[in-house]
């Protein structure tokens, strides 16, 4: 986009344009560095800093426990990956249920509305505790007893309610003319959804869905309350034994390594989506 905008200083030489490009980066980098240096100075001169430093930033502790935390983090990311796929599909089903019209579909619509109201209205932590401790305790034959399974299901159920609403907003944002055109071509309700509404709706909501994916990526750490040995749990186990919190910092670093690239990807997709819309209205 910016390349299309006429540059006010187009006639100036190449050197000036290069300077225009580089200068903002230099200034912003210098500013950030400056703030970091000041903060560091304030923190380091604090009276308790040496104690905090050994308790939270002990590199040797981090290295010792890293393999276990990393293994736990693998569980976090595996749950996340599976949950993403299930949520993407289940939430779409919920959104479709809610969009169906006609008396025959009233039970599906009702189910969808109640489901979304309930699961969006409860804290995820509460759901994880209820599912993770409650369902295995029921001891129903044929159902899994793993708290990992039920905890993950709680996260999936909760996030699906949000994602269903995102899909629904995408379906609502498709112009009425598209429905009229589909009807005028003789498409029935299902065909209209499949060929006309959903492809546009899904394309429109991909940035919002990615945003939810980033949120879920760190919320999977909630499963640690069930005793599942994920990254946070592994870090806590060590902390409880030694009163050294450095492992928590190691776990935090691992989450950042995963979430920051996802956030950048979301930014990129959002930007591309906006450009596509702008082009269309030109």
């Amino acid at each position, binding site marked *: 986009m910016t390349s299309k905008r006429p540059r006010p200083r187009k006639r100036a030489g190449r050197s000036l344009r290069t300077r225009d490009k580089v200068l903002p980066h230099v200034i912003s980098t210098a500013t950030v560095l400056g703030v970091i240096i000041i903060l560091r100075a304030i923190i380091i001169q604090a009276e308790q800093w040496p104690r905090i430093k050994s308790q939270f930033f002990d590199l040797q502790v981090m290295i010792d426990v890293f393999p276990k935390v990393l293994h736990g983090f693998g569980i976090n990311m595996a749950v996340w990956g599976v949950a993403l796929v299930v949520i993407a599909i289940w939430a779409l089903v919920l959104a479709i249920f809610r969009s169906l019209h006609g008396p025959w579909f009233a039970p599906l619509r009702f189910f969808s509305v109640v489901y979304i109201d309930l699961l969006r209205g409860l804290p995820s932590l509460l759901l994880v505790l209820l599912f993770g401790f409650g369902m295995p305790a029921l001891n129903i034959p044929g159902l899994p007893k793993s708290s990992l399974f039920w905890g993950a299901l709680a996260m999936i159920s909760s996030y699906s309610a949000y994602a269903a609403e995102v899909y629904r907003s995408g379906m609502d944002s498709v112009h009425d003319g598209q429905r*009229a055109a589909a*009807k005028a*071509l003789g498409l029935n309700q299902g065909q209209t959804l499949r*060929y006309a509404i959903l492809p546009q709706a899904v394309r429109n909501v991909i940035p919002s869905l990615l945003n939810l994916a980033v949120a879920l990526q760190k919320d999977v750490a909630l499963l640690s309350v069930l005793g599942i040995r994920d990254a946070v749990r592994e870090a806590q186990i060590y902390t409880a034994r030694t009163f050294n919190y450095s492992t928590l910092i190691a776990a935090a670093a691992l989450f950042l390594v995963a979430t920051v690239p996802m956030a950048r990807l979301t930014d990129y997709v959002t930007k591309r989506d906006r450009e596509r819309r702008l082009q269309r209205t030109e």
Partner: protein
Amino acid sequence: MNRIEIEHLTKYYGSKLVLDDVSLNVAEHEVVCLIGASGSGKSTLLRCVNDLVEFDEGLIRIDGTSIHDPSLSAVELYKRVGIVFQAYNLFPTMTVLDNITLAPRKVHGTAKDEAEAYARELLGLFSLEEFAKSYPEQLSGGQQQRVAIVRAMATKPELLLLDEVTAALDPELIGGVLAVIKSLRDQGMTMLIVTHEMGFARDVADRVCFLDGGKIVEEAPPAKLFSNPEHPRTGQFLQRIIEAGRL
């Protein structure tokens, strides 16, 4: 034989009367243009014909069968009656070719090869063959509207409804779309057209109906209606159009 018979059609939006006891017939191979100010009910009337808008009283028959008759399925109705919208309403996630072949393939069960061959033939007729694999957004408004006409033609309808098809187009793009409509008339297509292009209505129509306040105030061959309108409201409307430089 009458393709469309509209009898005593009445339609309310809430408490507002938009169609007031309208009756109109369109014969086979006839081209009828509906003109009138915005809000006169002409687009609503058009959309009632293919059941996109429900009406409160009256009756619409296509080839002698009521559009609400159980023997006339929705699939059959929309196969016989094509419509083209002001905003084109092409599906943006599909190529031009997929837009055109969607209804023949998914609704009417035509084989893919056959549907695509016919689509390409129609595209060729309107000089659009190079865009078969393009997406609608890559086309100009005029090209999109011609594709929309091809899409409406793909089920070989007996009747075409055109709803202000040039109203969203830049003036230099209107000509191409109007030429396509004229060629359809020359091939004998029955058409009911809502338009603001008075010059076009005069050229293409066998009969022009002037709507005002949800009624057909006057209907006559274009030569008569445009040069010698009988009803004072028609005269006032045409006078405003002439002052605006549109006739």
